[in-house]
């Protein structure tokens, strides 16, 4: 029992990082998906402008996550030194990628308010931000890929974060479009986006199950990983349930081509984020080093 309480303590201690790894990928996922559309020369200028301005919504969500991550630092005043570890420390790589992405997204958002923003510049900048956003998601996924933490290292935990970000980013992206008064009469694209988002979360659940099955029987000084984190399977189940519930709020309407209300999209985004949060809490619960396991 004590070992479970010990890992629960670690997960609670890192609760701000849970927030960061939910809201950050969710906001960036939505931003990247919307930017893919904005990088193409389609749509009426007025509609595009409304979406450009409303990109503040996913950007704000990502910024809240990034700010939350800073609150767990003991001495944030030394944060600039983080850049000296780029290339060596996975955490420095993550911070550099996220900062570069958020800065570029922020300046692009400001530029979209210019009196005569050049359409070509905005499209090219969107393509750059898709690349930076993808890099930031990958950087966040790799942040804890360290060989001595056997439950965090490897490709699967990294994939999980990216899949969760894209899966949670779809309802947030649809909410952004709704707030921009775009997509009132959703067509095949919205339905396809919902199917892809749900598929990402289903793949995420599968990845988490495979990862747990691989590490569950590994012995540490505190017992096997399964004994150390007995609540993990329940958290993954809660994630799956929230993913299904969240998409159940939007997918049937999207498939029938019905208008998705703001309230429904807010609820879907919140429920899916809650589910991803359960999975991320499980990630920190699963912390176990080689050897001692502490």
């Amino acid at each position, binding site marked *: 029992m*004590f*070992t479970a309480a*010990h890992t629960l303590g670690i997960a609670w201690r890192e609760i701000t990082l849970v927030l960061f790894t939910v809201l950050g990928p969710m906001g960036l996922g939505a931003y990247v998906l919307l930017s893919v559309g904005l990088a193409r020369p389609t749509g009426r200028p007025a509609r595009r402008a409304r979406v450009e301005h409303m990109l503040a919504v996913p950007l704000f969500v990502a910024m809240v996550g990034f700010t939350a991550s800073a609150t*767990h*630092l*003991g*001495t*944030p005043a*030394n*944060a600039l*030194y*983080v850049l*000296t*570890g780029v290339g*060596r*420390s*996975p*955490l*420095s790589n993550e*911070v550099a990628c996220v900062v570069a992405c958020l800065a570029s997204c922020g300046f692009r958002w400001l530029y979209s308010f210019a009196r005569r923003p050049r359409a070509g510049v905005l499209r090219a900048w969107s393509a750059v931000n898709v690349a930076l956003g993808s890099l930031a998601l990958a950087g966040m996924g790799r942040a*804890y890929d*360290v*060989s*001595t*933490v056997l439950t965090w290292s490897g490709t699967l935990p990294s994939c999980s974060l990216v899949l969760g970000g894209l899966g949670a980013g779809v309802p947030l992206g649809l909410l952004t479009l709704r707030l921009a008064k775009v997509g009132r009469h959703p067509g095949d694209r919205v339905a396809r986006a919902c199917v892809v988002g749900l598929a990402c979360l289903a793949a995420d659940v599968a990845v988490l199950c495979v990862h747990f099955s691989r590490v569950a029987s590994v*012995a*540490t*000084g*505190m*017992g*096997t990983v399964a004994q150390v984190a007995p609540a993990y399977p329940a958290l993954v189940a809660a994630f799956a349930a929230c993913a299904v519930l969240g998409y159940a709020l939007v997918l049937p309407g999207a498939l029938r081509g019905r208008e998705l209300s703001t309230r429904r999209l807010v609820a879907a985004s919140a429920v899916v984020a809650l589910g991803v949060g359960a999975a991320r809490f499980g990630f920190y619960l699963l*912390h176990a*080093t*080689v*050897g*001692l*396991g*502490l």
Partner: protein
Amino acid sequence: MAYGFHFDASRCTGCKTCVLACKDAYDLSTAVAYRQVYEYGGGGWSRNDDGSWSTDSWVYYLSIACNHCLQPVCTQVCPTGAMHKGDLELVSVDARRCIGCGYCELACPYHAPHVDRELGHSVKCDGCEGRVRGGGQPVCVQACPQRALDFGDYDELTARYGVFASLAPLPDVSVTLPHLVVTPPDQGRASGSDEGTILNLDEIV
């Protein structure tokens, strides 16, 4: 020259004098300890056919601090370079650079660094660098009543005690190449064994 520790698990009684001497010398709070003593054991009791009981239970102790590894993972993951090796090859924290993110604490397989929330940065065993520079020994080594701890040039330690350090529940030495030599106890289990568990987790900080 690289410094390292020798720990004789066949002598240690788990008295924790080393832990307290260190806490006393550096005025550490109850939430922080640079050295920990792990009680590792397993086995159990079984009832015989004649109704009597027999046991195969076993236990041994490990006194572990930072091992100032040849390939320390804490310095690799530290985003600011605050966790570093000095001229004596001892791993220590530069408090002026540390942001207190705790990555070193999460990654170290020897549970050596800790983030002191009051100070706002990581803290850990620095091998009593000041005492060593003055020609002395770390305070834990001097305090041990069983003479189960030794400290010195790692090459000299391996020449005197051998190179073994892969004693459960410690990780295999190949992970970080610790500057640690362990004399195993009679009931010692090799790293990776699933026969035992740490029995005194409520004493570990």
